[in-house]
């Protein structure tokens, strides 16, 4: 009896069952499975079935290669681990033996059988069913050739914080052009707002500003601040990016950055961004003195001339006539081969944590406010003082995990707050000598030299209290509480409730994804986790790539992290991009969807669905087309096409139905005979 077997009906299939040490063999009788496959699947084209200790070892791979050559195998099924791990390994082994790599099918009997079952007999039966599905499916595989596309040597870096700066410099130093886009008037990001950096207490500006200057002067870097990416078209190696360069109202070629306009501008505005609301800036401003580029911007919303039509003080006083009220936004289009997203984070709005009183109790500060207070270039010249601007606190309470590790806000750990809070404790002790209480859930000081810093802060005399703060209140109940902020906390080490009166409370608020992270992700064709952080391709093995080829992520856009990790990711993303550029072209996985135009009626159901913007609609012919270089083979459009006009390689109807038939083979054998199958 010969059953149908793919297009030709005469494929010669080899089945290889891996023990994976005891990972698979501990639960599944792999020898029996291999014997069974050889005996029972021979009508389905199986000519050889073997088991081996580690199929992924070079000896295991050689086994397959030898069979391909000697037995003339036309298809290979490897029953082992998840395709994520070793599909590539076995595809390459097939290729070495002269078989098209896409004629190999990996069946996961580890993740889908041995690891999820304890019943050995049932797991063994399930492995047989999975392998049968794989055998039926692989017969329908077709040889595929990877798509080769050239890589444009330029790179777009989005975000000018330390992650973006690092990535841009690495690539530019290697000799390739970079467009660095930053939406604020200056690069520098959050790091520019900090005073000191843990654990070494280097001055943030001292280590950051030289890099900012390098970016500003680098011949290979086109710096586009006060700019945003509005559109991304194309695919890996060949992106076309549209950037909106917002009007600065300053002629950059004439401006010398002398600062007279800022000095003379009569309009003072609370600086909610850089000074975290603690200081003022003018309507024409650079966020901070070391800003790169040096050109200010005019804030249209607050400029007296733009709002009332009079003033023009800056224009009158500018020595180089660089003010230009007529400037308009510019749209620039650039071609790049790769994109690095380093869009950073927002901090959680502390007003949301009602019980901590921020916004209601004057002397409750956020971590970012404290950074500005302690910064020598900040609004208080580095004086740690209460909201009145003069009084030094006698006691300070620092609350860790504000809004982090909390199901009411964010479940995750914001990673930096422990060290940041310890840094604050150190600064308070050093600058004011005040008594400092740190309230923590756990202390997480895991990176290099972090725990040593913790020990040092303890030696400084900071008092650490383990317990989640219940409330910050100004309602005095006990003597000594009047006029103070009282921190109500369960001291879980002492095992009792405590009320600790302090003058100042600092909330180490958690990090959150940028408020517009989802829109940005959609614009770049990538996805965010439920929390809103950009999802990396693999959390361990591919942490700076995304599921979209040619789009990389670095820094806090991917998740909360400290400066060393951020810099490492910036450099890592740059290294990945440089490797691509050096190759000059890239081979794309040929798992793609395509449209049979003769069957497409232009109903446009699929048009809005592609997460990678690979679908193009031709109005003139009323047909849809899929750009193969952009398509990532996800199958969304294939499933949605009501006319069946879109098919996906490796997931054709024939392949999927054959696999289902294989999986259910045993069921079909057991079931009573039913009516003839429809023709």
């Amino acid at each position, binding site marked *: 009896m010969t059953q149908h077997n793919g297009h030709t009906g005469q494929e010669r299939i080899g089945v290889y069952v891996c023990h994976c040490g005891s990972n698979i063999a501990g639960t599944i009788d792999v020898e029996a499975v291999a014997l069974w496959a050889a005996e029972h699947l021979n009508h389905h084209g199986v000519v050889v079935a073997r088991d081996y200790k580690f199929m992924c070892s070079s000896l295991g791979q050689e086994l397959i290669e030898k069979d391909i050559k000697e037995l003339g195998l036309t298809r290979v099924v490897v029953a082992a681990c998840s395709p994520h791990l070793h599909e590539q390994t076995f595809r390459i082994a097939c290729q070495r033996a002269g078989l098209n790599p896409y004629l190999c099918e990996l069946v996961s009997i580890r993740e889908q059988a041995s690891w999820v079952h304890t019943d050995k007999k049932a797991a063994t039966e399930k492995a047989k069913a999975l392998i049968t599905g794989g055998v039926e499916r692989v017969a329908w595989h077709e040889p595929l050739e990877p798509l080769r596309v050239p890589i444009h040597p330029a790179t777009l870096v989005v975000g000018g914080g330390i992650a973006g700066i690092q990535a841009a410099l690495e690539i530019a130093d290697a000799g390739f052009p970079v467009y660095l886009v930053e939406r604020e008037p200056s690069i520098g990001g959050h790091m520019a707002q900090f005073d000191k950096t843990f654990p070494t207490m280097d001055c943030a500006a001292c280590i950051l500003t030289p890099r900012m200057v390098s970016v500003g002067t680098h011949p290979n870097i086109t710096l586009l601040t006060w700019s945003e990416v509005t559109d991304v078209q194309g695919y890996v190696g060949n992106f076309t990016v549209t950037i909106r360069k917002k009007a600065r109202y300053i002629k950059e070629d004439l401006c010398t950055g002398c600062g007279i306009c800022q000095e003379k501008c009569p309009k003072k505005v609370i600086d909610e961004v850089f000074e975290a609301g603690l200081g003022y800036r003018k309507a024409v401003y650079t966020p901070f003195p070391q800003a790169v580029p040096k050109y200010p911007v005019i804030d249209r919303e607050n400029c007296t001339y733009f709002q009332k039509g009079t003033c023009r003080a800056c224009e009158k006083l500018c020595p180089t006539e660089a003010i230009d009220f007529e400037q308009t936004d510019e749209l620039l289009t650039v071609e790049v081969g790769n994109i690095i997203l380093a869009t950073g984070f927002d901090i959680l709005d502390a007003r949301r944590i009602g019980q901590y009183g921020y916004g209601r109790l004057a002397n409750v500060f956020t971590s970012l406010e404290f950074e500005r207070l302690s910064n020598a270039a900040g609004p208080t010249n580095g004086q740690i003082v209460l909201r009145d601007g003069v009084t030094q606190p006698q006691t300070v309470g620092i609350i860790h995990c504000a809004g982090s590790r909390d199901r009411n806000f964010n479940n995750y750990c914001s990673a930096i707050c422990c060290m940041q809070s310890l840094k604050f404790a150190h600064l308070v002790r050093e600058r004011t000598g005040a008594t400092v209480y740190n309230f923590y859930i756990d202390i997480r000081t895991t990176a290099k030299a972090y725990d040593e810093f913790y020990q040092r802060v303890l030696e400084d005399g900071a008092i650490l209290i383990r317990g989640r703060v219940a409330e910050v209140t100004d309602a005095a109940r006990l003597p000594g509480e009047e006029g103070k902020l009282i921190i109500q906390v369960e001291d879980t080490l002492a095992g009792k409730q405590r009320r600790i009166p302090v003058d100042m409370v600092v909330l180490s608020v958690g990090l959150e994804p940028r408020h517009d992270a989802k829109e940005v992700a959609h614009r770049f064709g990538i996805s965010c986790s439920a929390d809103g952080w950009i999802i990396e391709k693999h959390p361990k093995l591919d942490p700076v790539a995304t599921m979209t080829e040619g789009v990389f992520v670095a820094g806090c856009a991917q998740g909360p992290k400290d400066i060393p990790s951020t810099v490492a990711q910036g450099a890592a993303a740059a290294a990945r991009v440089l490797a691509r550029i050096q190759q000059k072209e890239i081979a794309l996985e040929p798992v793609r969807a395509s449209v049979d135009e003769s*069957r497409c*009626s232009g*109903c446009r159901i699929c*048009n809005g*669905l592609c997460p990678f913007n690979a679908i193009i609609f031709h109005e003139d012919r009323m047909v849809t087309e899929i750009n193969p270089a952009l398509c990532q083979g996800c199958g969304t459009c294939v499933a949605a*096409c*009501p006319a*069946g006009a879109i098919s996906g390689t490796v997931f054709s109807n024939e392949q999927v139905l054959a696999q289902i038939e294989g999986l259910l083979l045993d069921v079909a054998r057991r079931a009573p005979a039913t009516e003839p199958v*429809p*023709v």
Partner: protein
Amino acid sequence: MSANGKPKFAMYWAAGCGGCEIAVLNIHEKILDVDANFEVVFWPVAMDAKYQDVEAMPDGSITLTLFDGGIRNSENEMIARLLRRKSQILVAFGACACQGGIPGLANLSTPESLFAAVYDGISTDSQGVRPQAVWQVPEGELHIPEFYPTLKTLAQVVPVDYFMPGCPPEPHQIAAVVDLVIQALHGQAELPPPGSTIGAGYSTVCDECQRARSVKHIRAFERIQHLNHIDPALCLLEQGLPCNGPATRSGCGALCPLAGAPCIGCYGPAEGVLDCGARLLSAFASVVDGSTPEEIERCLDGIPDPAGQVYRFSLANSLLGGGKAAGDDEEAEQELSYEAAYHD
């Protein structure tokens, strides 16, 4: 060939409304070509005939048989097998024979609930009565055809040469097929390969629909009577009307959408589509625009009878068959009683 040298023609009405029979007559003067080129040997609607007469014909002696309606009972199946044996070309004619059609929707219910609806409802005074295949009366044994647990398509029972969809097939398409068969008989044309769908297009109704279309974001599905205004030039689906056009084979000329009513899907799936209901459902679901599960659910709730909407004509031919009846294996064992149907 018959005595007069003309090829023989037959048509049979199984489980269906009979509209297909009328549609054949609706080809107007073309019907004269049928008469001129064929000898009608069996067509219960148009002329008197006995099953024995057909039985007596040599196998393969009927050149062309149009079979409309699905297979609902043993008589339907018996005639299907008989005509298959006697015919050179057997055409599943119309939506019911091809896909099960409206009667196929009964596959969502058990036979007992169907009987209960028919015999226990307010329209009859025969409460509790059920049809019996065999019934003893003083005069002897009475037989009526056995009611099957599910309705089947013609091709689920016998091999079919061609499928001609539509509820009913459009007259101009029938006329074109008649022309083609006549030309083929005269050696002037070639018939398409067996198993093909004839008298219809290759893609979907949208191909023939002139309404303007854009990227779809559907926030609510509405029933047509609930809309105050229907834009005469815009895609009906984009106006929130569940239109089956995107998944339905072309060939009708998009009559319904162009008249302002959504396509109901009578021409069945497009070429190569296995299950047009599943396709349609996933297409509708793909273009629903809602940001929360509740919004999406509210939108989809706008389709009051999803199975009836997407599988209106194709349930019996869907991948899952739509069979709710738990009697499939009994049915396989049950010998088809030719006698039972015959002596009725």
